[in-house]
């Protein structure tokens, strides 16, 4: 096992997220890798100290004042939708339609990419060879996708692993290309309603969600 992969497993282990068989693999690697042993020890220290440094104790009087502040603002407002929150005026700008329909935007984007890619493959392929794609080649692709979809449909574990690996690869590519920072430079506004998690769904567009509270 490569050290990079082992260190990813160490991270999952620290978060209590490592399966038994992966833990076994990690232990096997650790037994023969001083570098990863040191990495593990360093991460244990970071974990322990990070937990401690964010702990703040406030006296009970402080909490009373904190609650009174909230109560006062709520009483003044009367009804939930009359609450005014400082610094929110700027956020009341008109929401763009693409922010209101993230699913539609995603569908259109994927469709555009797929159609565009197919068009380029066929067009360039034809221009280059002045021939159509061999039928046998197209059928073999189709068969591969069909087989894969059959396997994933029948085996939940395989489907989950496939989705996770695919997702991590994509995210790593995005990160290496500096995309993660770019994505997060928008207004942070995760959807607060109707949220359903799907493990094989990247949901990157959630960062651009429409609902502003």
């Amino acid at each position, binding site marked *: 096992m490569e050290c990079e992969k082992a260190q990813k497993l160490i991270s999952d282990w620290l*978060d209590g997220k490592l399966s038994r068989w992966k833990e076994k693999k990690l232990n096997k690697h650790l037994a023969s890798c001083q570098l990863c042993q040191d990495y593990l020890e360093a991460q244990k220290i970071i974990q322990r100290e990070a*937990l401690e*440094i964010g702990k703040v104790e406030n006296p009970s009087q402080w909490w009373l004042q904190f609650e009174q502040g909230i109560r006062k603002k709520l009483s003044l407002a009367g009804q*939930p939708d009359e609450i005014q929150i400082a610094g929110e005026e700027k956020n009341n700008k008109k929401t763009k339609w693409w922010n209101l329909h993230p699913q539609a935007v995603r569908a259109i984007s994927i469709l555009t990419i797929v159609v565009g890619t197919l068009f380029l493959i066929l067009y360039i392929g034809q221009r280059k060879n002045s021939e159509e794609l061999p039928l046998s080649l197209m059928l073999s692709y189709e068969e591969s996708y069909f087989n894969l979809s059959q396997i994933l449909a029948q085996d939940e574990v395989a489907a989950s692993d496939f989705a996770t690996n695919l997702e991590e690869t994509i995210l*790593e590519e995005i990160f290496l290309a500096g995309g993660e920072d770019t994505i997060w430079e928008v207004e*942070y506004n*995760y959807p607060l309603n109707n949220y359903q998690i799907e493990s094989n769904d990247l949901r*990157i567009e959630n960062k651009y969600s429409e609902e502003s509270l």
Partner: protein
Amino acid sequence: MKAEGESQLIEQARRGEIEAFMELVKKYEHRIFQLTYRLSGNREDAADLAQETFLQAFRAIKDFRGNSSFHTWLHRIAVNRSLNFLKRHNREKSYRDEAGQIDENSGRGRQKAELKVASPEDSSLSEEFRAGLKKAIEELPPAFRATFSLVVGQEMSHKEAAEVLGCSEGTVSWRMHEARKMLKKKLQPFLT
């Protein structure tokens, strides 16, 4: 407070009953404050952000449909507000009021002395290491900082953090790994 009691309080708060909502505030104020403190880095901003979180929650509670837990929903509001705050105010140096100034050069200069203090066998780490760690966390990109704060600071599982952040568990796992690598790199002078 049982979930049933909480649902009742939420229902009452939906009808505009302030006292019912204040019960929810009392239940969650400590955890929300801890989170806004971890993200903003100082007490004053953390208190403001926590208050704003509750006010926003009260305003939006009519739209809360229970698809996620109230706890998750509240954390999501707190994360949104805190990250927007950081973005607007560009608070890169917000930990300094409590952590004190960090002189990176002096840290490196004392590297050998710190190595012993920061070794895994030693239970008490130096204040300088803690200040360095605060600064390193503060310098993480927002998405990574939020993820790290939820998983390590709020002790959430990847699943819970994913629900708060609106991403998949795989994304949380990957961000944690990257965040840890970044922290380790920045704290290298202190670690053996």
